[in-house]
């Protein structure tokens, strides 16, 4: 653990371009141990690009990634993983047709034996999978059960507890609640809080403020490839976060536009809905 002051992970002036497209233009962010940093932004804000840089999928065009104060470059996702950065992807790194225990250890199978007789330690894999899931508060009935039979929230739990078990110091969750119902999303947020309680630095990516606000300690808001700033929870309200995410001006414009709709509906109803020509009272300019 990188105790006290030093952030576990820090991004400095990250720029990422794909050909002529600028996906990120100078984003900075830092996360400490035992802290949940929510990375908020609308679709296309650059959240996924930032996460791919953090998890070693590709390097930034410019800028620096620091891990425990040291500048690093990740050779591959596996490299990032070995340095303690675990990413739970939007499209889960989970195989629905494989069993819980096989999924749990995918890519890092425990082995016994030596040389050509080195083999997958199935017994250990089963036992550990059940134990670790139990520590996160999920009681799996059968470690041989295919993950496809579990609920969306439970699947996330497999991925999260796997990351925690393998000694991740940084846990990146990419839209973990996007495809979930209200109750399931609540379950997942509880695991996020659990992971924080166990001393992980958590980066939670979402575009849902209502999921981010209860669990987040700080919020970094991305808009169209650049950072709008990082705010501590004590400094902002949920509405302010929402406003910054989509841009207050835009929200205000949307609000007045919707009012126009409502008024023209009322007018029409008052006129009796007959064949009367509609005079442009509710002319909505797009």
């Amino acid at each position, binding site marked *: 653990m990188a105790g006290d002051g030093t952030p576990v992970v820090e991004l400095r002036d990250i720029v990422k371009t794909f050909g002529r497209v600028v996906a990120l233009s100078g984003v900075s962010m830092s996360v400490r141990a035992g802290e949940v940093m929510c990375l908020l932004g609308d679709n296309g804000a650059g959240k996924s690009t930032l996460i791919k840089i953090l*998890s070693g999928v590709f390097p930034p065009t410019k800028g620096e990634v620091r891990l425990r104060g040291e500048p690093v470059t990740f050779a591959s*996702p*596996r490299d990032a*993983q070995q340095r303690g950065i675990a*990413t739970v*992807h939007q*499209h*889960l*790194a*989970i*195989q*629905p*047709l*494989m*069993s819980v225990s*096989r999924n749990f*250890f*995918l*890519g*890092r*199978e425990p*082995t016994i034996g030596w040389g050509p007789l*080195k*083999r*997958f330690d*199935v*017994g250990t894999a*089963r*036992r550990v999978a*059940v134990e670790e899931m139990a520590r996160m508060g999920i*009681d*799996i*009935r*059968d*470690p*041989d*059960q*295919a993950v*496809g*039979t579990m609920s969306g929230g439970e699947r996330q739990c497999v991925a999260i507890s796997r990351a925690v078990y393998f000694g991740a110091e940084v846990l990146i969750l990419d839209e973990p609640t996007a495809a979930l119902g209200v109750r399931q999303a609540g379950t997942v947020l509880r695991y996020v809080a659990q992971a924080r309680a166990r001393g992980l630095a958590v980066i939670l990516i979402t575009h849902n403020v209502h999921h981010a606000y209860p669990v987040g300690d700080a919020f970094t808001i991305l808009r169209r490839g650049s950072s709008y700033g990082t705010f501590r929870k004590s400094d902002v309200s949920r509405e302010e976060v929402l406003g910054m995410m989509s841009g207050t001006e835009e929200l205000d414009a949307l609000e007045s536009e919707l009012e126009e709709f409502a008024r023209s509906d009322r007018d029409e109803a008052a006129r009796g809905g007959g064949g009367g020509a509609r005079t442009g009272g509710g002319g909505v300019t797009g």
Partner: protein
Amino acid sequence: MGPPASSSSTSSDERLRRVGFVSRFLSRPETGAVAGALVIFTFFSIVAGDKGFLEPLGIRTWLQVSAQLGIIGLGATLLMIGGQFDLSVGSMIAAAGMMFLMPVVHFGWPIWLALLVTFLFAGLVGLINGTIVNRTGLPSFIVTLAFLYVLRGLTLGVTRAVTGTTQVSVRSFIGTVEGVVTGADARAVLKDNVFGQLFSFEFLGLPASVWWWVGLTIVASYVLLRTSFGNWIFAVGGNPEAARNSGVPVEFVRVVLFMGTATCATILALLQVFDLGSADVTRGMLKEFEAIIVAVIGGTLLTGGYGTVVGAVFGALIFGMTSQGIFIARWNTDWFRVFLGALLLVAVIFNNYIRKRATEAK
């Protein structure tokens, strides 16, 4: 085999519904093939048992046919679980047979050297197939279909250029070197070699192909279920992107699997060469599809990520028993293909049902 049953440590959980033996059996991928093989065995035992189906020679015949298909079926099964197809298997059989026998007969290579070069060639073909699939992202169906033609054409072209014919026989070799001998004696030359013994021995009255099949099945099943690599095969076939995110070397796994299918084809080719004493450019026609059929009847999903080696064994048995059973029963063998097509369809429908049970039931 398949993923083993639940451990005793969790069986005390009251929420763990008592799943009956039948229900557990039904949700395993190889179930259909085991049941099918039993039905077919019983059927031919009744209608052709007195005509030789159950006699040692009859059993030997259908076991050998099953073994030959089973060997390439194993490679196809692992590859299909890994999410890919290899349509170049049939052409590889002809190419590997030629690759081995032509240098021995026409250039006088020692058998060990020809074997070594043939297996290296198989590895190379697998490497090329796998690398092209990895690099281009094209469906392996297309890539290996191209190699179905390329390999067949190369074999034909090179063989004709070197020998002037389309067949290389050990008989011609003996004829030129040691004077006139019969075909049976000529084959003995191949079989007397220490390395030649590997592909031509008999044990307990069963030919080498059956023992190779048994051995390769054990190895393949062990790799699939009890090694890290086996876990990666499932993952690469189920969801390659997710596998990559988990740190599985997806490209490496694919290349090894393609090398596996080419190697299985080579082993079959060598078994045939030693059995018949000849190599022929037309050998292995349609075998690529039969290998896939064996895998599918064995319960492996066409879409990858799910399947068993044991299922493929029973798939091959179904194939072997039926083709030879019809022959032994002295029925018109024309109908075999009709049966095979129908069986394939039933197997796929059944597999889909099993997969639904495995992923949705509870």
